Each structure stands twice: as structure tokens, then as C-alpha cells.
């Protein structure tokens, strides 16, 4: 009981912080993928390695010494217990709001395009006859809108592990992308991304819902 109340209040405080602080000017957490190494870190490698997509890396090995345990003592001296805080405070950046707006714009553009999801079988990334019909429809739109760029998202149902579902989702997205290319859509207009089981369309634990989640979902890219 105590525990529930306590955790509730923590979560409540955090949600309040989320709601009330988007305009906060001081950012202590870089959100949205800014590439910024922590201070005091070795400058990362040669120019070759920075081109290859590898950022700077701190020394993360266990430092010797450390630890707060000093043993029991017949005549213990007072130890100060700190406020646990290895954890910085999060100030939500404008990233959350921006992402939300971009997602809404993408959804609106995709709905206007009349895209249909490609649905997949359990554990499968094979495109079915129904799936081909959906993609035929989607390819027509892409051909009549030749400047549009489209992202193919691969999704999975909640069964299976988060990690393997990311790989499975990528296989589904690539299968759909490859079929669109076969239909004559330029490969350079198509990108793929896997969301695994992390962005379900439906959250019931039922096969009808699982089927909706095993999908290739096309999204018109509206931003950069």
C-alpha cells in the first residue's frame, strides 16, 4: 500500500514536471540525439573513425577503491548518507513536443495518401496476397506523387523478445520495401525502420490485435 502510494506520487511529480516544464530554458539532458560527448572524455580517435559513425567513448571500467562499505565497527563513526544521487534531474526539452507535432503531420499525410498496412503472419516476414494488394495500392500513390519520400516501418506483436522483434520488424520493413521496388518505385525514395513491438497499433492480448500489430506501415515523410 505504502509502496503504491509512494511510487504513484513519484510518477505524478514526474508527469507534472513533463507538463509544466517544456518551456524551461536550461537543459540538463540532451534529447533528440544531439551528439555531445561528456566532459573530460578522451577525444575520439582518428578522423576515419568519426566518419565511420563512432562517437567518443569514456573509460567505463571499474575504478579501484570505491564503494561505501567500511565494515561494522565497535565504535562506529558517523557516516553521511547522500541523497542517492547519481541521477541528474531531467528537464524535458522541446524535443518531445516537436516529435509529437511531426508524428501528427506524418499521420495526416499518410492518411491522405490512403496507404494500407501490409499484415504478416506469426514469426513471418513473407508478403501475402493481401499484402501485395495493399502494396500495389501504395505503389500507385507513390508513382502519382513522384516527389514524395516514404518511410516503411516494420512492427511486431507483443509476443517474443523486444530485441528479436526489432530484427523481425526490419525484415518485414525490408520485404515490403523490396516489393515496392519490384513494382517500380525508386529505391532512393524509400527508407526502412523497425519499431519492433515498441509502437503497437493495438494493445489487447488477443490474436485480432496481434494481427494488426504485425504490420508494415507506410508513412509519408514530411520533415527532413
Amino acid at each position: 500500500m505504502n509502496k503504491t502510494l509512494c511510487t504513484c506520487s513519484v510518477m505524478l511529480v514526474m508527469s507534472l514536471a513533463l507538463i509544466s516544464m517544456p518551456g524551461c530554458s536550461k537543459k540538463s539532458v540532451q534529447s533528440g540525439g544531439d551528439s555531445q560527448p561528456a566532459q573530460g572524455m578522451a577525444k575520439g580517435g582518428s578522423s576515419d573513425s568519426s566518419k565511420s559513425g563512432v562517437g567518443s567513448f569514456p573509460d567505463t571500467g571499474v575504478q579501484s577503491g570505491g564503494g561505501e562499505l567500511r565494515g561494522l565497527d565497535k565504535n562506529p563513526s558517523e557516516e553521511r548518507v547522500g541523497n542517492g544521487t547519481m541521477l541528474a534531474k531531467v528537464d524535458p526539452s522541446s524535443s518531445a513536443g516537436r516529435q509529437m507535432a511531426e508524428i501528427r503531420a506524418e499521420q495526416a499525410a499518410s492518411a491522405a495518401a490512403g496507404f494500407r498496412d501490409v499484415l504478416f503472419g506469426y514469426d513471418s516476414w513473407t508478403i501475402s496476397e493481401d499484402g501485395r494488394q495493399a502494396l500495389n495500392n501504395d505503389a500507385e500513390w507513390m508513382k502519382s506523387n513522384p516527389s514524395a519520400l516514404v518511410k516503411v516501418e516494420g512492427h511486431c506483436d507483443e509476443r517474443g523478445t523486444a530485441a528479436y522483434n526489432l530484427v523481425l520488424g526490419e525484415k518485414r520493413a525490408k520485404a515490403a520495401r523490396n516489393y515496392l521496388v519490384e513494382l517500380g518505385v525508386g529505391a532512393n525514395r524509400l527508407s526502412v525502420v523497425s519499431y519492433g513491438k515498441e509502437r503497437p497499433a493495438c494493445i489487447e492480448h488477443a490474436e485480432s490485435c496481434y494481427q494488426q500489430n504485425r504490420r508494415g506501415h507506410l508513412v509519408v515523410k514530411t520533415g527532413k
Partner: protein
Amino acid sequence: MTQVKLISAWFGGVLLLAGVVGTLESGAADVFLEATRPDFQKISLGVAGIQNAGGPDWLGGRIEEVLKKDVKRSLVFDLVDLSSLGIQTPDIGNGMGAGSKVVFKQAAEKGVSVLVWGKAGLKVGNKDADVNMEGFVYDSGSDELVGGKRYAGSPSVVRLMAHRFADELVFRYTGEPGIARTKIAYVAEQGTARELFVMDYDGYDARQLTADGFLNLMPQWSPDRRFLIFTAYRNRNTQDIDMIELATGKRWTVISLGGLNITPALSPDGNFLAFASSHEGNSELYRLDTRTKAIQRLTVNPSGDLSPSWSPNGRELVFVSDRGGGPQLFLMGSEGSNVRRLTFEGDYNAAPVWSPRGNWIAYVCRTHKEYKLCVISPDGQKRMQLTTGPGVDDSPSWSPDGRHLVFSSTADGKSHIYMIDADGKDIERLTFVGTHNSAPSWSPAS
């Protein structure tokens, strides 16, 4: 959620019992993982109260409650109920008085090896209120007042005082640092986004670390506990591997090769980062030398390879590959040599994590269409299913003492985080709020 105590299957032998899990629930009751550690004998410990010494009514009781739970979870001690043994526990003070001698004698007679008590008070100074706690320990084996601890801190740290005292007890009797001060990193849903959080090992004091409004997935700790490394989506389109420094909140990208970059795992010495990336086509395993930044490809085949986990000595990796059809566990040397398949039972085995003691690998196994926790010995000789029943269990992670696992499960409907003993006993739910909590990762001990 029910638990299965033990199912062993000796490959190459005649017994392949995993297919009949349900029938074995009540069998093999006396064979636990502890059987592999013959030195494992719990020490009986009684808590004779944490008295209030000036302060709010709840103070002593709160510390006592946290301490008792820590002692129980340590699995080093057998927490005994003193009153049910007929042992009266008046205020023993500093343990020097005549009354204390009576209690000590009773405890020794009833087989209680360790007696713990203490007091706590709130002192209001000129600036801030300060909680003071004293803990004392008597050892009946040596008939010795072992000593104790004195802590001071703000009222917000009373739980941490109890945790630290519990870890001192574990340290005293095992030489290990204990797990009561460890943390669990995890992913929690915030609207449609998934953000990183860190909470205490017992589920309290959850704190948010990211707020991007999109997906941050599968955090892992650095060996020194200063950083988390995880998969993040740069503007929703590509998966990169990012790091965040806990003390400062500084965050940056370490791997952005294009394609899927997932399941990062730092070697125990921090010198290598193993991860999966699809930037050369399909998902393959790579190893980054964190000092030279050189990247070495470890796997070469047209199937998906992912989820590397290091052996405690850093010489081997266990990982998932679907090169045989469905996902299975494989082992290889940490530079990619000597690949061999580890799991042969069932058509779906994934999310492996090597125990810090090295003797088990925990993973998600699919049996009867359910995704449950299993453990297997690295030589493939012993296998055990830890959980049964409905719901998807995922993302097991070992406690640094190797005695527990934390994992996510949808057994109660929504995905929440649970702790389970490494032998499959005593499941404890750790999260109670929110729409989705997943991908727990247990910190190293400090």
C-alpha cells in the same frame, strides 16, 4: 504466476523433459540451484527492532521494514521472526546492559546466529532536519557484540540508510558488497513514447532520465555504474546507440552506422562494446574497441545475429542467431571464433544474459506458445525453466550477486517488472504504476 522448481535436461542423454513442464511443477522439489553451491548455507538472523529515538512515529518502523526486506532478499540470511520464537525484544540500547544479555542468551538457545537492532531519530538543527540511525549487531556463535554503524542524512534517505546497513551485514558475513544499494534501469511508457528510468532495486524512487518523446530502448549499465548505453531513435528514422551519464544527464551518440544498431553490451573491463548492426545488410554482431575505436565484425552469415552478452571473464559471448530458422542461442569467442550452438530445445530461444558467476545463462524460451524464463549452463548440460503460466516474459537481467533475475512480464496484463530468485522461487513485482514498464537492467554492485 507460478514457478517451476527444476527441470534439467541432459543433452546427449535420454532425458528431454522441457516438453512436459506442466507435469513437473511439484516434482524434483529439493534440487535447487544452490545444490551447485554446496557452501551455501543461510545464516539465521533476527531483527530486534529499530526503536524511535525522537522523531516521527513511522521512522523506526520504516527503517526496520526496509531492512527486513533487504535481509530476506539477500538470500544470505534466513530472516527469523523473534516473537514467534518467544524472544522478547525490549529496547536493547547499545547492547551493553544486563537486559541485553538475557536476549542474547535466548537468541543463542533458539539458534539465531545474528541479532540486529538499532534506533533512529530526527534531529532538527538550525538549517535542515537530520535523521540519525544507529544499527548494532550481535553474533551468537562467537557471543560477541560485533559492532555497528552510525548514519546521518536528510529524511529523504532513510531507505538508503537501511539499504546500506543491510549491505554491511552481507559484507560482514560473505565479503560481498550486497545488492540493497543497486539500481534497476528500465523503459517506461510516457504517452506513446518510451523513456529511460532508473529505480532502486526494490522498485522505489523511480527517476526519469530521458524525455525525447520517442523511443529509447534496452538500457545496459557500464561496469562502473556511471553510464547507461541504449538504443535510441534519431528523429524516429534510424536506430543509434547512445550513452547517458547518470550524474550529469549528458547524452551523446556512440554508434550511428545506419540501419539497425541495437543490443549494446560493454565487456566487463569496459574495453569493448559488442552490439548488433544491420548497416552492412542484415543484423550482424560487431565489436568496438572503445580505446582505438576500431570496429571488428564478429559474425558473417545471411541471418539475424543479435543480443550479445559477455561471460564474466570477457573471453566469450553468448548471442542470438536465427541462422537455423528460429532464434537460438550460440556461443563464440569474443573475437568471433569457435561458434557453436547452445540451445536445441524449442524453436524460439532469445535474450540471453550470462550470470555474473558464470555458471548460468538466463534467456527467454518459448514453450507451449508462451515466452518464459529459462536458464542453461554454458556447457548445455543443465537446463531449467524458471517461470510458467500466461504472459510474455522478456529481458532477463542478473543481480550482481547472481542470486536473482529481474525481468518484464505481461502476466498481470500490462507489462511490468518483476524480480525472481535464480532458482525460480519467490517472484516479487517491482512496478505498479504506468501503462508499460520493460527492459529492466540490473546495475553492478558498488
